[in-house]
């Protein structure tokens, strides 16, 4: 364990997590809207936004899956100290974190039950870029249509077809975050 494990959390958790949640709520309620997060300094390769999302939403009651490069000792130690989430395999996770490639196949993740669609995974997807250019998004939270640089469309269309079941996504890049709930229709531009 190095000293970096102990740092990088919220300095003032009640206030910073409240501000972070409002940004995440806005991101999820308005799919495609890119919001800024700040307040955490997680170890590489995690982006700041992914670290803030973990600190805000996960704790010892939420099984977490780290995928690919995110599943490294510094991140595992940081999660153990700041969050205490149990690290599990993909199918058991309430939250999963990694790049889109590392999270494949996404059909592994919980999509909820027909009578309890809320028992589904939330994927925190690390992105190289996050812009409002890409596939078209329509649905609840979007007035007419918006666009987001999604890694692909087929997986999200398949996920939308499961509605009301399905997983929900948060896309993170640096300090920025955007949401894509299962309710959003995704069409290739």
């Amino acid at each position, binding site marked *: 364990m190095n000293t970096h494990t102990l740092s990088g959390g919220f300095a003032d*958790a*009640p*206030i910073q*997590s*409240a*501000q972070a*949640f*409002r940004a*995440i*709520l*806005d991101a*999820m*309620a*308005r799919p495609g809207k890119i919001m800024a997060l700040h307040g955490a300094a997680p170890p590489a390769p995690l982006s700041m936004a992914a670290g803030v999302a973990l600190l*805000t*939403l*996960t*704790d010892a*009651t*939420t099984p977490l899956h780290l995928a690919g490069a995110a599943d490294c000792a510094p991140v595992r130690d940081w999660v153990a100290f700041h969050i205490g989430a149990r690290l599990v395999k993909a199918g058991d996770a309430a939250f999963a974190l990694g790049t889109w490639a590392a999270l494949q196949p996404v059909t592994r993740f919980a999509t909820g039950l*027909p*009578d*309890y*669609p*809320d028992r*589904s995974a*939330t994927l925190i997807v690390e992105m190289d870029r996050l812009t409002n250019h890409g596939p078209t998004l329509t*649905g*609840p*939270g*979007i*007035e007419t249509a918006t666009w987001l640089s999604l890694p692909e469309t087929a997986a999200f269309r398949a996920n939308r077809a499961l*509605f*009301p079941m399905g997983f*929900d996504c948060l896309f993170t890049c640096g300090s920025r975050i955007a949401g894509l*709930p*299962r*309710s959003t229709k995704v069409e290739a531009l």
Partner: protein
Amino acid sequence: MNDATPEPAYNFAYLDEQTKRMIRRAILKGIAVPGYQVPFASREMPMPYGWGTGGVQVTAACLVPEDRLKVIDQGADDTTNAVSIRRFFARTAGVATTTRTADATLIQTRHRIPETPLHAGQILVYQVPIPEPLRFLEPRETETRKMHELEEYGLMHVKLYEDIARHGQIATSYAYPVKVSGRYVMDPSPIPKFDNPKLSDSPAIQLFGAGREQRIYALPPYTKVVSLDFDDHPFTASKAAHVCDLCGARASYLDEVITDDLGGRMFVCSDTDFCTDRQAHGKRGRLSAPISGGAA
């Protein structure tokens, strides 16, 4: 309106951090499945069930120090429930409060949607007594859950049909059931059906908290919300056929107030901020006080 600075003995917005994370996760799942009731581990709050413990927990999970909070009880900013919840958050979160709808960033409401249209920077939190729209038709949770799963809402249409058979019209006038985004039938909390059209395509985020029943549900902005009806008995947003006796408003929802024991009565806007604002702009109703200091 800032009657207190935050009390240092409390965590920000009263609830502990783990509870807020749990509520926040439920809110996000509610947003992802509009109209679906997400179970959550509702906490004891320092007020009785029925006083808005669900709304208070949702508000506590959403508040940031920069917020400007408005609390209404059946449209009024100055009744016991509204005053005590507003003071609760002024004391435990130190947030600014307001009675003006347009200035508020977070509005907790009991049984009304403000007359002033909401805007994109706002969150409306509803206090919900019975979140399950099918509960009075089917008391078993196992059955209503299965009905939502199978999208089997025939029973609700039978109920509305029986209204028509008995009364000649759909007699349900509050907590009027709606269908959200073409999927879940939802109880909009006991708002008058006059307010139902405002649920649909609102630019604001709408969150619903039921503390005793331990459910949270949500409407993201710009979500289609349709009041259930029949082709030959279309939904109508009804109100008392009067104008406000204080501000003369014709299109706002009215409360009837008994003024004596001889059958005297008056109708006033249920939304006190809306009514006060109109009066401040010189609008007058039948029983308005004469303008003081006016032309001699």
